[in-house]
């Protein structure tokens, strides 16, 4: 008895989603920098932008309305359609 249980989870496939292939060059690529709106994230990202541009990348800046909530769907879509890669600055 009681040997079969019902799965209480979201049953997401245990297989990891495959990552996109790593960029082989930054030259001419668009890199998004996502600021989650925590203090001083911009300082970190400004520095990253300089380094990326030195390597020939074009940089687009994005920011979440607030760090306490997930990025809105439109923002995620915007980043996905405009960028080849994205870097997120997590916290202060």
């Amino acid at each position, binding site marked *: 008895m*009681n*040997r*079969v*249980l*019902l*799965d*209480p*989870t*979201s*049953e*997401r496939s245990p297989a990891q989603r495959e990552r996109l292939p790593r960029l082989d060059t930054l030259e001419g690529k668009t890199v998004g920098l996502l600021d989650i709106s925590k203090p001083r994230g911009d300082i970190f990202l400004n520095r990253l932008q300089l380094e990326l541009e030195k390597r020939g990348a074009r940089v687009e800046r994005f920011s979440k309305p*607030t*760090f*306490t*909530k*997930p990025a809105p769907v439109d923002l995620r879509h915007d980043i996905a359609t405009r960028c080849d890669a994205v870097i997120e600055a997590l916290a202060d």
Partner: protein
Amino acid sequence: MASLPPLPEGLVAFVKRDCPTCLLVEPVLVQLAKQAPLTVFSQDDPEFPDGLDSVDDTSLEKSWHHQIETVPTLLRVKDGVEVERRQGWHRKEWEATSGIDGLGPGLPEYRPGCGSLSVDPNLSSELAVRFGASTLRSRRVELAEAEDEMEAMFDRGWSDGLPLVAPTEARVLAMLEGTTRSADETVAVVPPDLVDCTVEKVAINAVMAGCKPEYLPVVIAAIEAACTDEFNMHGLLATTMPAGPVIIVNGPIRRRIGMNSGKNVFGQDNRANSTIGRALQLVIRNVGGGRPGDVDRAAHGNPGKLSFCFAEDEEGSPWEPLSVTLGKDAGVDTVTLFAGEGPRCIVDQLSRDPDSLARSFAVNLRTLHHPKLALAFDCMLAIGPEHSRIFRQAGWSKQRLLDRLGELLQIPGSELVRGADGIAEGLPAGVKGATLPKFLPGGLLLVHCGGGAGLFSAMIGGWVRGSMGSQPVIQEIRP
């Protein structure tokens, strides 16, 4: 659904020995068997009725499939199809169905039957599983022979740290009896993974939490409220602050499901209080994927994150309930979700006039999270009966108390600025010349609860208020 097991031709009766009407009609069945093809299915004792060769239906398979609700039931079957059904003993009906007159001489004309074992509430969920009627969609997790059930659930990461009730199909089906909603209905999109959560998934987690079926509508309403943008469960998980969801229940359902609003209201012991909040947290954990150390980044957390759920003492309160303050009609069943930390006691055993007691509340409320921080946090003030009595006797309304607390909690900016009192924490220097309220309008909520002895109240500190934090959310409880 399995195919219907066929019935024999002629007359078919379903009986059980543990039914006075079945005992009464025993001679009628014997009489019928002599004059017509009759098959008797016995639900509890294959030797019953005496003198007849009855068919053993102690598995209740035939009774369940043919939806027998009452015993005795007399059927007439023609060409494999049921054409007539009589429930209980009624001489004229039985004579009409059997085509035999003079049944049961000396018996009363009519006797109602008893409940069929196949619809016994203690058995019906097991039977539905056994006979394949379950429509549940969740993945089946089959445990290995040597696996301990309790350990298996811990191993799979389903537990909040305490033992769980195993979510078997029968228990989940029984849990679903607690709501009129269908199992596949979506309740909410649960953060942080933003997963559609069905009533079925809620029921599974409610079983694991130890809920009774009658708590399920409260759990569902709590999940609906928690998963709104205003309540911001995602942020509440992700914050390093200790707050978690606090559930306050209003309306008649509090009494119907036996919730505690009195002694030890925030403590252990009451099953509904302890398991409803736990069920919400298990849904966040298991369906939403919100686990401590992952998205839940609390530095300290608080013990209420296992379950923090209580009822308001509406009957003993001098004021309208919280749900009415938040805009619902009196008598409507609601849950209010508040993002709060653990409760902290406010002692005042000497105040006998309302202004003195309000001042006591204010000096304590001033310290919420830090005496030098203002505007940023909400608070729920839980007023005990011995304190509320002082306001009742003085004729103070809830609003009057809130207004007075608002006056007492106007703080000179000079006391709040960074560096004041030799403490770096505080507000920016720009507020120095201003006067600031500790709480923004609506940021202080009053609820009435606690035991009848003890001149105490309690404050439950909130998380960050407003659109980037959490706002209290009230939700009606639907059956």
